[in-house]
């Protein structure tokens, strides 16, 4: 496999974050945190039955 990882990892010009990437990160994190709070609440109100 002719693949120079050193060049790949270090030699490339830095790609700035595009608006769509920022949106993806923001929406994912925001939705994740909101859903987590909902699930924690659900976990609290629907306790485990043994």
């Amino acid at each position, binding site marked *: *496999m002719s*693949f*120079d*990882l*050193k*060049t*790949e*990892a*270090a030699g*490339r010009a*830095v*790609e700035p*974050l*595009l608006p*769509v*990437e920022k949106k*993806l*990160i*923001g929406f*994912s*994190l925001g*939705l*994740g*945190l909101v*859903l*987590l709070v909902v*699930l*924690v609440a*659900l*976990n609290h109100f*629907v306790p*485990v*039955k*043994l």
Partner: protein
Amino acid sequence: MSDIAVKAADRAAVKDNFTEDWLAVIIGVLVFALALFSLGGTDLLGWAVTTSVYTDIGNALAPVAKAYAALGGVTALLLTYVALLAVLSAGVAALGADVRKFALRFTVVFAIAYASWIAGSYAYIAAVTPAEQQKFGIAWSLKLTNEGGFIVALLSGLVIANFFPRFAEWLKEAIRPELYIKIAIVILGATVAVTAAGRLNLASSLLLRGVAAIVEAYLIYWSVVYFVARKWFGFSREWSVPLASGISICGVAAAIATGGAIRARPQVPILVSSLVVVFAVVEVLILPFLAQTFLWQEPLVAGAWIGLAVKTDGAAVAGGGITESLIMAKAAAEGIKYQPGWVIATTATVKVFIDIFIGIWAFILGYIWTNHVDKRADKAKLSEIWERFPKFILGFVVVFAVSLWLAIGTTPEIAKALPSAAGEANVFRVIFFILTFFSIGVLSDFRKLWQDGFGKLAAVYFVSLFGFVIWVGLLISWLFFSGLKPPLA
């Protein structure tokens, strides 16, 4: 870059759409179906070998069923080897591999892996309670349980990978950790169902809490790791997507699926995958012992944590197995005897939930990339969701559903006989676990970490995993599973 892991992942076996996933479904369901014959009084798998804790090696091996006791342990071992060789050789032939090469190498892999398992069952390594030590006439032991054999198998593989790289390269045809663990997970469906049938309320609660794992892996972990890779380490999008997926979701499968979805060059996700395997080994060597020390009073938190923190199916579910045996050993020493199966069932549930959404996540990323980032690339198609769906999960679901129906929807006689049948299938699950551990070890060439360029990738992984993923996983496992205990035996 020469790299066994790359080649192994590259080979991820596809011939006319027949993949390792489908092979795992067929073999796993076959083992399960054969085990079910015992419900009708015909024991087809009772000859399979099991290993007990021993001080006299002559007592280590035996057939799993008493009806086959006359065979003796060595014959049972040979029969088990021949059966696995035949079935797996037929399987890899269907995948287009060289059967002769595979058969020879599998023989060596099986021999070393099972020898490791036997070594791990030596009483000085495995005996747990003072009563066991007294029974074997020993004054001390490492108390690893006989599942310490998994760690011995992993270490054997690591020694080969790092000190005998040519031998590791020679073995590679039979080094198929993804295939072995997928077969094991399909078979595990029976054990999980039998375990769940005893406590349906607790089992359904586990499923509900599995949803939290999806939210955490896909939405929280992924976005943070992607940001770290892009912003702090300056990686390109092509590298950052598979890297974030590998660290956040489910290692190899997710890195390859999402890398393909954004049309990355094939080498990129494959190199990320080899890094995932190396870190998974480090985690499996450390986390179960941390769990035993700090979480032994919260066994299901420990099981969920391993499922969230360890990033390959093989290492995670196998790590769940080690964690269960270590925690049960510690609890037993404190006079608490939990029912077995709950910790590993929690790990497997978390992992399966995470796996299910790989295809959907890959499609979402593919859609965004081909429509908004790289508009020249061919557009993502809905059919990719099915193409990237890990098919072995279907096998797990089928085995689980049939077992659950047999346990609670049929006659009391069948329900009573089912645990024994599932136990015989479980013997093969354990053997496939052993093969997985050994294979993961053989793929883990730590020298890669010192190669030029790999350090930066490893740094992202290290920072994300130890600075964020492990701790958030612990917090979320604690939020959802604390206070939940396995039933007492």
